[in-house]
């Protein structure tokens, strides 16, 4: 989480970061109350994301963050989701996972009654017949220019606390070969959708320094978790 926010705030080139979770953990949306998750018990690590939406139990999944200038995405938030989700639909269909963008969804104007991101798909969420397959959320800030952090969580196997989600493993065997192909294809398709040529990279010194500060002072602190107790 700290690295993702550092990538957002430092304002560098568009950066796609792929990662997973060890140990498996729950991430809360920015506005969620910690007390709504008291039933998870002390053995489930919890972190608060900078992005919005509902909580996600990050088990065996492919997580990605995309940090970039807002000008590189459609101005409309829904259109920016559609662009990125269409790229991921292409990736997954090519691998044999029949998914789609949901044409309709639950009510969006009411405050979410569901605490889990995957519980109630809304329009443009990426779904299969079994349910929601990808959790997505954004944070938008303005530094010297508008910037966007987009988080995505693609479920490979169903996690313990959210057994109602769809999973890539419902359709294809998730082995090391599949994981590698999935990562390569995701990089290629997301880059193509943004009209970029992907290049491997590492964090800059400024991004590393800020990530360390954010880890120590924000994401690793109980106060941050308790900002909505």
């Amino acid at each position, binding site marked *: 989480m700290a690295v993702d926010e550092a990538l957002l705030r430092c304002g560098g080139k568009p950066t796609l970061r792929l990662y997973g979770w060890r140990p498996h953990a729950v991430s809360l949306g920015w506005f969620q109350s910690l007390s709504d998750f008291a039933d998870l018990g002390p053995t489930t690590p919890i972190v608060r994301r900078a992005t919005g939406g509902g909580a996600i139990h990050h088990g065996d999944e492919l997580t990605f963050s995309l940090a970039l200038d807002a000008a590189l995405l459609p101005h409309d938030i829904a259109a920016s989701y559609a662009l990125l989700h269409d790229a991921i639909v292409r990736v997954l269909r090519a691998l044999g996972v029949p998914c789609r963008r949901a044409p309709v969804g639950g009510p969006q104007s009411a405050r979410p009654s569901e605490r889990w991101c995957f519980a109630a798909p809304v329009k443009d969420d990426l779904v299969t017949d079994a349910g929601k397959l990808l959790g997505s959320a954004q944070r*938008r*800030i303005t530094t010297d220019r508008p910037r966007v952090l987009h988080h995505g969580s693609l479920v490979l196997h169903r996690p313990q606390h959210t057994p109602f989600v769809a999973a890539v493993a419902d359709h294809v065997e998730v082995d090391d070969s599949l994981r590698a192909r999935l990562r390569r294809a995701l990089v290629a398709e997301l880059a193509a959708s943004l009209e970029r040529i992907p290049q491997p990279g590492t964090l800059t010194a400024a991004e590393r320094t800020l990530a360390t500060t954010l880890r120590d002072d924000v994401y690793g602190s109980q106060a941050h978790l308790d900002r909505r107790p």
Partner: protein
Amino acid sequence: MRPDDLKFQKSHEWCRIEGDTATIGITDYAVSHLSDLVFLDLPAKGATVTAGESFGEIESVKAVSSLYSPVSGEVLDSNEELADNLEWLSEEPFGKAWMIKVKVSAEAPDLMDGKAYDEHCKAEG
């Protein structure tokens, strides 16, 4: 129509400065791009805000956006009813959907008048 006594920030906040007090909110343009608002966080009375820095957050469906203060100073009042009445932001963004009132100690250097703000919105698309 936007009232003509406002100043604007590139990040789409407005402020009305009367004496040493600034009333701050977000513009109709910002609201139109933040559909389906669900949460709002504002600073409490007595807090301090800094020009150009975040004073709160607003969440539309799955996107949290930071709100930036056009002025520095102490928060004199915070619109506590707004979080439970987010539709006001669509209905009266420059009226009852004001967010905070601040005792101004300094203004951001790059606030725009209405004409310049219109051009900024056109450039953003």
